[in-house]
């Protein structure tokens, strides 16, 4: 008889899915690898920034060979100008765990159980920063954990074990749990009541380093993990394909290259693209429904591009003997969680069918 030793949770080499965070290793950056922005998703999937109407930020997916336990890719937010914050400044990196991913986990709402959040962080300066956890319905409950950045430009791992709380059952639609890395919160969002559940609506610790508005400062994170249990286990590595498919529930693009904004309008006659289906015109041109790889979180916002190189948004390419973009930028786009279709009366004529080209992206993230 062969005996198989089964390891309990909390010991080394715990197997199986532990990490509730999608793209915690920052491998997937469908929108691009560097961008300047103020509010939204710009590079790494699932991690959103907000500048609180103060200053400008560059976000990027960084790639480096650091210490062996730190994932290769990371998400960097860097201030690119000098600006003053105010008491109401509200600046962060945010991740949202979807309600569907926590509703079957009673531990999170059980005060006798713990969950643990861990991540690697690197910063331009030494000092204090914090991670904030909040219920999906933001005002219900918050938990702020300050940590010290011991050395500038150096990776370190932060972990915090947090007791469950019944208030975490207060989700807001698909907003299950929110996570905030402070980049410049004003005093309106700061608390000194750290390492405990609070209801004051604060997500940052008082005394944190200010990133935004201080030109050249940056905060960089990777290896983000949210797991049940009393301690942080090693970061759970997943394959790129798996992470990409998980991300596509929230954002999908049909093009290889990033559908960057403001690409010069120089390629609208290109037939490049992956849509490649036929438009048929009777009283209007119609496309079949184009299905997303996975069902998206909600009906997504869709942008259509005239070629795979993403030139003129709001239009798509059709072949009428030569390639060209539709003249109108006002098609009717019927969007569902699983697919979308296009109807247009512009650029097509009765009784004809057309080869359709171009690309699109669909955004259903928080």
């Amino acid at each position: 008889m062969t005996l198989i030793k089964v390891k309990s949770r909390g010991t080394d080499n715990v197997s199986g899915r532990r990490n509730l965070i999608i793209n915690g290793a920052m491998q997937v950056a469908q929108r691009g690898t560097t961008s300047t922005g103020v509010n939204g998703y710009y590079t790494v999937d699932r991690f959103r920034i907000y500048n609180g109407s103060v200053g400008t930020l560059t976000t990027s997916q960084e790639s480096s060979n650091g210490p062996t336990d730190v994932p290769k890719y990371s998400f960097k937010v860097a201030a690119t100008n000098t600006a003053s914050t105010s008491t109401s400044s509200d600046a962060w990196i945010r991740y949202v765990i979807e309600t569907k991913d926590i509703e079957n986990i009673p531990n999170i709402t059980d005060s006798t159980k713990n969950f643990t959040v861990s991540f690697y962080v690197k910063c331009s300066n030494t000092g204090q920063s914090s991670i904030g956890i909040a219920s999906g319905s933001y005002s219900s409950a918050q938990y702020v954990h300050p940590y010290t950045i011991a050395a500038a430009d150096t990776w370190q791992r932060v972990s915090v074990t947090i007791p469950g709380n019944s208030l975490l059952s207060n989700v807001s639609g698909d907003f299950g749990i929110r996570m905030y890395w402070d980049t410049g919160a004003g005093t309106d969002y700061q608390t000194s009541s750290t390492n405990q559940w609070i209801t004051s609506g604060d997500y940052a610790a008082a005394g944190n380093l200010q990133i935004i508005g201080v030109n050249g400062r940056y905060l960089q994170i990777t290896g983000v993990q949210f797991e049940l249990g009393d301690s942080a286990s090693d970061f759970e590595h997943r394959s790129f394909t798996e992470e990409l498919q998980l991300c596509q529930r929230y954002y999908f693009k049909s093009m290889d290259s990033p559908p960057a904004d403001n690409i010069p309008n120089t390629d609208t006659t290109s037939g490049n693209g992956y849509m490649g289906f036929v438009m048929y015109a009777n009283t209007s041109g119609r496309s079949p429904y184009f299905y997303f790889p996975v069902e998206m979180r909600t009906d997504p916002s869709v942008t259509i591009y005239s070629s795979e190189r993403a030139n003129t948004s709001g239009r798509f390419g059709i072949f009428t003997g030569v390639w060209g973009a539709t003249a109108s930028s006002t098609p009717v786009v019927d969007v569902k969680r699983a697919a979308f279709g296009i109807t247009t009366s512009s650029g097509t004529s009765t009784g004809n069918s057309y080869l359709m080209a171009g690309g699109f992206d669909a955004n259903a993230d928080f």
Partner: protein
Amino acid sequence: MKIKDAQYYLNDDGNNQGIQVTMDNDKVIYVPLNTDNTDYAEIQRQVKAGTLTIKDAD
């Protein structure tokens, strides 16, 4: 979300199907009328704040 222009578009039945949004960088986004969609929620917030008006469909 910096919006330059927002206008409803209609389905075959003549009802509002979604909102065509032109961003300040001229990117055009088709936003469904679904409160779970974050863009739609933001549009509603801006309308409520009085900073955005959605034009009727043509």
